[in-house]
């Protein structure tokens, strides 16, 4: 193969692929473990909020194959709380201590001979919970009358800060228009295909932990974990496997489990392995934050935005888990998006609710911010009667204004937004799309166009999160900033080149790109460079910013590798200069040789040169010895927040402009993306194939967020999307091919001129699609995900009224199940009444009842086996009778708890005598179901509950000699 001038810029084949394509990847669960390694399974909370009153784990502890069962009490003895990132008196443990605060929170860890056996033992643990009211909505959580999650706080507000940049107040006062949007950004997650995995081993002799985990950084969390495990950093060795099955931020969230498994290993004296399963992942790994934002703009008559007022309420779930509330502050320098807006006010509040804790997720704060900002831009156009294209055009930061300092403190490194925007409109065929829309509408079709401009920040400033602290608090804590990137280039005795980095790739092809970068620097081929990316904190050069997030690879790690290679090269040049009798700066590296510039025959083989310092150090001056060079690079631009709270939250800023056309089916209300154009200026492109992959991959995530995906919770905090059948990840059928356009404006701040590209579409695409749907429907308020049922509310309009009055009330109330029915009993009301109050009769008629205990005349406790079809489980039921009007009516309030979930409900039963001496029993109930069945069988719950209840009445009727016991009585319950 002839050597191209530069390897960077070529879509070379990836070095990673041969192994991955042939089944020889080395993911965490593919690696062997030490003999004697135990396997962990976790018992998790079925309740959103409850006090843990008692845990009975002895039967589990005594089960064969079980080494230990650890509860919160055991765990807290062996570790400390995880550090919390705001100044508030709250703790964050990796396992519930006295309370559970979200569905899925760990309650006990079983360590056993195999995962199968560990799960068997989990089933044997009994926990008494005292259910507490849950708070789910972030705005409701602000209400101090609501239940409080952490008693250290007065309410659920964990942090509040207000900021003012420029003169927002004055600008609003004089503005021609004020336009406002309120948005509720939902919860979702990028759900990598590989779940979390941890293998932890504690060495009692050295009081040290050695952990292998598919953690992705940031390694600032290494400090959090070491502190929680109560060892110095050097005694907490964290290693990563060579391959990781995707992360998108999510594998940051494995860190509490690293602590938990470390403790489990310490408690058992054996290595402990835990591989998260998909149900655990969906319920309790990590979610992006949901956020309620009110955003106002002060706008001139021509659509120029003069000021913004942000009010953001960020819901981080049940705990503030490090590095939260970073999601809220990651975009702080970029709150003006791609626009030239000088006056900004911000009010940021962080609230706690009974949902899974949040953390890193592709886009990290960007989707939430741009959803508000770009919905606002569309509303400005509509309210002022302007073309949305024109509103964006008028507000873009002008060409030539770079580097541009935003009102909130970011330095936008480079770009030509206007040019990228105009190119996209022209090359992407915007005019034709408008024509198409016109035609479609003329035919009565529902067609909309959406636009979005966005700035995609990358290479986070490790100090941005301290913007959550007041300037005084920051002064006390000392400044935090920078983005230390590291890379090591080493030469081996045969003259081979290897590269070690702390970038922890999760599929992004880092090894390939680093080989390209170093090959270019040294005049070699990528195949000559061996790149090692599995990381070991005990041996590798790393710092707190290490890891795979904030799209920092190409800009920071790639740059550091380039610099490290440059250092080696400079030394080699001096050695070569001495050998070739030319000045070092006359030596050039190409085709695997170092040669004198202009005289290619005066050359020495690279490998020979590279081996020199190993074999003949005596010939090389000490300062020139070229063996191994490590570079730590941190950009000076990333300074701590200023005293005025200005923060350059990220180093690089890519520009994105997207537009799309969508059509909505009038019958199904499904959204079809007809065309999607995405323009990126991500600086210099090192590998076009991988950049395209980042864009199409991010686009698919964003499409999921826009149309399908939501971590949904019921009003009681029950988790409703616990499987991949309910958490809807788009497939090839749902994801169209976007049209990708580029402009390349190199970053002046990074060694290679590169910027991040991986997160942009997660920021721009959800709102671009929403804008198109809003345009199609002509609505102002629109929230994700844009499910057909939601759109139907607009498009189908009010439902036809029934021609006949309805037999049964069928209107739904969210997750509350309710229904009603009737049964005929042969006995008269008095007899039926007696039966209802008699434990013996109840035992006989409650579906699957194993016995009823009477606590008082109106309070019963029962053990029941309930089931529908193959789904059966044993439950404890607690039933209270009230409002008794003998023999006419009674209200039954029940709570049912068991391994498959928990339910509570109230039913009113009325008895009426019939002409033939029998009784008509009528009932109506409202019930709520939570826990496992709600999370994984939500689609079927309604009908299942109905069946069980119907069966109860059918059995009651049968017991009284009713005519038709029917199929139901037979189907349920072994005892009945």
């Amino acid at each position: 193969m002839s050597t191209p001038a530069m390897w960077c810029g070529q879509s070379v084949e990836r070095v990673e692929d041969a192994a991955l394509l042939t089944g020889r990847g080395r993911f965490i669960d593919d690696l062997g473990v030490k003999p004697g390694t135990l396997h962990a399974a976790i018992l998790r909370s079925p309740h959103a909020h409850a006090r843990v009153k008692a845990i009975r784990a002895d039967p589990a502890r005594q089960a064969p194959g079980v080494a230990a069962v650890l509860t919160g009490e055991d765990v807290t003895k062996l570790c400390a709380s995880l550090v919390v990132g705001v100044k508030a008196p709250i703790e964050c443990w990796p396992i519930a201590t006295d309370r559970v605060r979200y569905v899925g929170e760990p309650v006990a860890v079983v360590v056993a001979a195999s995962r199968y056996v560990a799960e068997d033992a989990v089933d044997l643990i009994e926990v008494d919970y005292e259910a507490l009211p849950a708070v789910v909505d972030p705005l409701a959580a602000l209400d101090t009358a609501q239940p409080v999650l952490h008693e250290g706080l007065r309410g659920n507000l964990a942090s509040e800060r207000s900021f003012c940049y420029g003169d927002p107040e004055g600008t609003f006062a004089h503005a021609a228009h004020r336009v406002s949007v309120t948005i509720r950004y939902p919860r979702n997650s990028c759900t990598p295909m590989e779940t979390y995995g941890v293998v932890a081993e504690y060495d009692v002799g050295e009081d040290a932990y050695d952990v292998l985990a598919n953690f992705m950084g940031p390694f600032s969390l290494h400090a959090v974990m070491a502190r929680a495990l109560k060892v110095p950093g050097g005694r907490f060795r964290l290693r990563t496997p060579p391959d990781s099955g995707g992360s998108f931020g999510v594998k940051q969230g494995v860190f509490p489990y690293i602590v938990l498994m470390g403790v489990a290993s310490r408690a058992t004296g054996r290595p402990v392995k835990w591989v998260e399963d998909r149900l655990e992942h969906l319920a309790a790994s990590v979610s992006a934050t949901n956020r309620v934002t009110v955003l106002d703009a002060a706008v001139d008559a021509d659509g120029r935005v003069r000021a913004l007022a942000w009010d953001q309420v960020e819901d981080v779930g049940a705990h503030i888990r490090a590095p939260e509330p970073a999601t809220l502050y990651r975009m702080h320098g970029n709150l003006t998006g791609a626009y030239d807006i000088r006056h900004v006010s911000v009010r940021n509040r962080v609230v706690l609710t009974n949902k899974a804790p949040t953390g890193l997720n592709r886009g990290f704060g960007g989707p939430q911010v741009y959803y508000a900002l770009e919905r606002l831009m569309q509303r400005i156009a509509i309210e002022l009667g302007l073309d949305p294209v024109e509103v964006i055009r008028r507000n873009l930061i002008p060409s030539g204004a770079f580097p541009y300092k935003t009102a909130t403190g970011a330095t936008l490194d480079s770009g030509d937004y206007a040019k990228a925007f105009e190119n996209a409109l022209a090359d992407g065929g915007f005019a034709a799309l408008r024509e198409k829309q016109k035609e479609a509408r003329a035919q009565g079709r529902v067609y909309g166009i959406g636009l979005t401009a966005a700035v995609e920040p990358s290479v986070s400033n490790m100090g941005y999160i301290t913007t959550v602290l007041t300037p005084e608090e920051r002064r006390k804590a000392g400044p935090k900033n920078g983005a230390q990137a590291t890379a090591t280039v080493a030469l081996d005795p045969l003259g081979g080149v290897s590269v070690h980095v702390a970038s922890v790739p999760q599929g992004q092809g880092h090894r390939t790109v680093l080989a390209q970068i170093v090959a270019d620097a040294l005049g070699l081929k990528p195949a000559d460079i061996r790149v090692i990316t599995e990381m070991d904190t005990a041996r590798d050069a790393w710092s707190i910013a290490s890891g795979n997030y904030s799209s920092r690879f190409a800009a920071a790690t790639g740059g550091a590798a380039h610099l490290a290679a440059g250092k080696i090269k400079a030394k080699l040049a001096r050695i070569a200069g001495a050998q070739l009798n030319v000045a070092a700066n006359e030596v050039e590296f190409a085709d695997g040789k170092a040669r004198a510039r202009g005289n290619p025959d005066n050359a020495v083989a690279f490998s020979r040169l590279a081996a020199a310092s190993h074999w003949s150090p005596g010939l090389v001056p000490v300062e020139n010895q070229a063996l191994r060079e490590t570079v730590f690079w941190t950009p000076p631009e990333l300074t701590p927040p200023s005293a005025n709270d200005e923060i350059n939250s990220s180093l690089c800023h890519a520009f994105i402009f997207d537009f799309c056309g969508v059509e909505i089916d009038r019958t199904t209300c499904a959204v079809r993306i007809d065309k999607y154009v995405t323009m990126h200026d991500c600086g210099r492109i090192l590998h076009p194939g991988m950049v395209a992959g980042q864009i199409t991959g991010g686009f698919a995530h964003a499409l999921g967020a826009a149309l399908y995906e939501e971590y949904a919770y019921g009003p009681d905090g029950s988790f409703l999307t616990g499987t991949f059948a309910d958490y809807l990840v788009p497939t090839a059928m749902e994801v169209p091919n976007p049209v990708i356009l580029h402009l390349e404006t190199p970053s002046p701040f990074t060694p290679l001129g590169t910027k991040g590209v991986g997160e942009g579409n997660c920021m721009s695409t959800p709102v671009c699609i929403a804008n198109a749907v809003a345009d199609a429907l002509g609505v102002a308020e629109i929230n994700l995900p844009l499910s057909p049922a939601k759109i139907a509310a607009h498009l189908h309009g009010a439902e036809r009224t029934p021609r006949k009055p309805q037999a049964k009330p069928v209107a739904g109330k969210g997750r509350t199940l309710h229904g009603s029915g009737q049964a005929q009993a042969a006995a008269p009301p008095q007899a039926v009444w007696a039966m209802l109050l008699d434990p013996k009769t109840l035992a006989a008629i409650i579906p699957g009842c194993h016995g009823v205990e009477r606590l008082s005349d109106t309070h019963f406790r029962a053990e029941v086996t309930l089931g529908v079809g193959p789904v059966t489980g044993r439950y404890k039921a607690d039933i209270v009778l009230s409002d008794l009007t003998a023999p006419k009516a009674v209200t039954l309030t029940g709570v049912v708890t068991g391994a498959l979930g928990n339910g509570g409900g109230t039913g009113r039963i009325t008895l009426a005598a019939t002409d033939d001496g029998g009784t008509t029993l009528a009932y109506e109930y409202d019930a709520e179901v939570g826990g496992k069945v709600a999370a994984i069988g939500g689609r079927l719950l309604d009908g299942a509950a109905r069946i069980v209840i119907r069966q109860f009445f059918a059995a009651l009727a049968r017991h009284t000699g009713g005519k038709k016991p029917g199929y139901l009585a037979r189907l349920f319950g072994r005892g009945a």
Partner: protein
Amino acid sequence: MKPPNFDYIRAESVAEAHAALAEYGGEARVIAGGQTLVPMLSMRLARPKVLIDIMHLAELKDIAAKGDALRIGAGVRQAEALASRDVAEKAPLLAAALPWVGHAQTRNRGTLCGSVAHADPSAEIPLVLLALGGSVALSSHRKRRSVSAADFFTGMMSTARADDEMIEAIVLPAKRPDTSTAFQEFGRRHGDFAIVACAAVVSPDGITFAVGGVADKPERRDFPALDGSPLDDAIDAFAWELDAREDLHATAPYRRELVRRMGRATIEEARRCLA
């Protein structure tokens, strides 16, 4: 997510399967394709004592077209039915619905009878069986019996099958030359369970219309050969009679509206083929 313990019996004859069902009744589950049962085991939603594997029984593997009926054995996988000429010719409604059942990779193992036994309210195969007026052939050590689809599906995942019975086959009446059928479905993603699925069988003198995904089980109505707004009214009345479910993915009013609109479209599609 690992299954609890159970014994596993690989039946070598139908009689052996019957004997095992007789012995264990409700504590046993037949395992056919496993595409529904295995995830339920892994999630520990189901905890049978014994699994009875019927997939090695040659006598259950037939698709038999006899006279005006098509009999599909319990061992027939969905992919096999989809590839069958007999199914395409005698039961085009089934052939139209099968591509909607999961994905090619799950159809390669899932059976038709397993889907009928499981009776998911959104499942396509039960809907087709009901729409066509088919029946379920049940057998046990005691007896054999045939139950019409209308009587077989009794509610959410609930059927007329007794604990000691297995489904040996489903039987579909072969398509009459004077009828035409159509199937339409809407789900959130391709391959998902239906939010609403519609099946129509039309003949010059009437319409059979059935919907899945809406109520606890597939539901069916027979209309005279209506058209225009009387047809809309009839469908509307049917939509209201259905006890439409609410869940995460759809509201009851939305489901009913799909019944109206998609139902009408399905009937028209069938009519177009008749013409």
